[in-house]
């Protein structure tokens, strides 16, 4: 075969198209999501949480019973087609009560974590950003608070504030922001020395802009991981408080209250205890798996 000049033509005529990026660049979040999807346990945790949320939101609407409907003719029944998970000592449908309990426990978990996040990010952000004397004083305070067993003070606050959903949130929110504050401070301290912060400052960005546009978005990974792992510990603490009699008021019931109520008649009707206990445990599993997975996905530096 003969090769002639007509068969060839030069490629990359213009230099611009050669430099063009064909595929859209993968952002940090897309990359994290890709890594998270590969982690099977984390995805199981994520979908379990979604399922629990759906049940908590829609379950009570579908159920023919309400959480406070008493029926003294149907006390302490075992699982049946009428009451899928049986009834309690006042003849209330246990499945319905557990679904309502999910609302309360999850509300406590999410809101308490959100509260900790807000307080922790502001406190840690200020401390890390200004540094020096302010940082010294603020971190001294955290150190002193950190040495105090906080759960004892949650209990003390609950005794003083009287039980109730709102007060549980206040007590949890007031005492569990310390870890978040430390993490945010550490992140901000190292991030503010980066060159892009200097660049932003040199073109006249204000402190507020630097904090909101550069420091917080870049510290978001560890913040999200900590917030996710705070949710199960808030649910855990709420269940614990309810169990020792400092939970939400009757006839409302969180999972901890349900478990605590069932303890009295536990030998005769063990399922009344087991179902809420299973609900708590599954939720803890799901959040712990997701939190661990998020840690691996959002913090590439930690991976080996």
């Amino acid at each position, binding site marked *: 075969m003969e090769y002639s000049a007509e068969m060839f033509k030069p490629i990359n005529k213009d230099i611009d198209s050669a430099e063009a990026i064909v595929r859209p660049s993968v952002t940090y979040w897309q990359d994290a999501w890709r890594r998270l999807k590969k982690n099977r346990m984390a995805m199981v945790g994520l979908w379990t949480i979604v399922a629990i949320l759906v049940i908590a939101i829609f379950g009570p609407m579908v159920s023919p019973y309400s959480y406070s409907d008493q029926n003294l003719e149907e006390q302490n029944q075992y699982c049946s087609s009428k009451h899928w998970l049986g009834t309690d000592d006042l003849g209330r449908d246990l499945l319905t009560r557990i679904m309502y309990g999910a609302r309360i426990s999850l509300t406590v978990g999410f809101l308490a974590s959100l509260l900790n996040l807000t307080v922790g990010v502001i406190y840690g952000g200020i401390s890390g950003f200004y540094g020096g004397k302010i940082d010294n004083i603020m971190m001294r305070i955290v*150190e*002193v608070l950190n*040495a*105090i*067993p906080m*759960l*004892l*003070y949650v*209990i*003390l*606050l609950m*005794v*003083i504030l009287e039980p109730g959903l709102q007060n549980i949130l206040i007590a949890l929110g007031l005492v569990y922001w310390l870890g978040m504050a430390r993490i945010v401070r550490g992140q901000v301290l190292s991030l503010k020395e980066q060159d892009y912060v200097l660049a932003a400052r040199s073109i006249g960005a204000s402190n507020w802009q630097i904090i909101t546009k550069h420091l917080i978005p870049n510290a978001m990974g560890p913040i999200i991981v900590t917030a996710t792992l705070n949710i*199960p510990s808030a649910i*855990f603490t709420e*269940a*614990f408080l309810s*169990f*020792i*009699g*400092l939970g939400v008021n009757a006839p409302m019931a969180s999972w901890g209250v349900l*478990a*605590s109520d069932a*303890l009295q008649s*536990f*030998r005769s009707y*063990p399922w009344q*205890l087991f179902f809420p*206990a299973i609900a*708590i*445990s599954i939720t*803890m*599993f799901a959040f*712990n*798996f997701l939190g661990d997975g998020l840690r691996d996905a959002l913090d590439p530096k930690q991976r*080996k």
Partner: protein
Amino acid sequence: MVGSYVLRRFISVILVIFVVATATFFLMHAIPGGPFKREKALPPAIQRNIEERYKLNDPLWKQYVDYIGNLLRGDLGPSYKYLGRSVNDIIREGFPISAHLGLVSVVFALLVGVPCGIISALKQNQWQDNFIMAFAIIGVSVPSFVMATLLMYVFAVKLQWLPAAMWGTPKHVILPMLALAGFPTAFFARLMRSSTLDVLSQDYIRTARSKGLSWGAVVYKHVIKNAILPVVTYLGPLIAGIITGSFVVENIFAIPGLGRYYVTSIYNRDYTTIMGVTIFYSALLVMLNFLVDIAYCWIDPRIKLTDAKE
């Protein structure tokens, strides 16, 4: 240098205990209507006793000074519910039992959790690792009251191998110990696994192997000694967890320890006992944390004694 570090840490311990006592005092006085006023009238003897002890008619600053003074003498005041009993009596009665149970649980957690973590790391991604880590995730996810009731149901109610409640013989210790040790054991296993994996990738392990040391000797002499350090730092929070765990576990197994008294006093709104036990436990934990910190510096000489924290 060691002395000055210990002294400085000791001063901060005193400071924290002081903050704790002060916070507790003012929280107590923040209760609407005061901690000692309720709808139901008190027996006059208690009313007199409380007013005498706490000098409720004095100005707040004087009450505070007196209160701190009493604390310095180790006097936590009378119980608000039990006539003629002081908070000190309650602690003296209940704490030895709680301490016994707690100590046994800590020892169990260390003896089981640490070796499990090491095995898990040495057999990374093999069946032993998966098996232990599956148990560990159950251990950190299941609340202690669920663990306690499950154990009681299986071993006491169904199988009837062990007593379901009360205290006295070694047999009574087993179930509450397992319930209490569940979380720390699982946590230690996870902690020990990750720190062992960390140590295994260090150069000095390769050096030790290449100079002809047997695998067993490397693990014993180099890996464990270095990997166990994070476990020591976790001892403080662990003891805090054991104490709060004892509140529910002692209740479920009807053990007459301080945790049970504490929860009963919450149910009864026995304010003076709640305050007294809170201060007692806080001071205890702060002291233990202090001892752990000192021990840590002694175990790990790499830590600069002048400033242990970042």
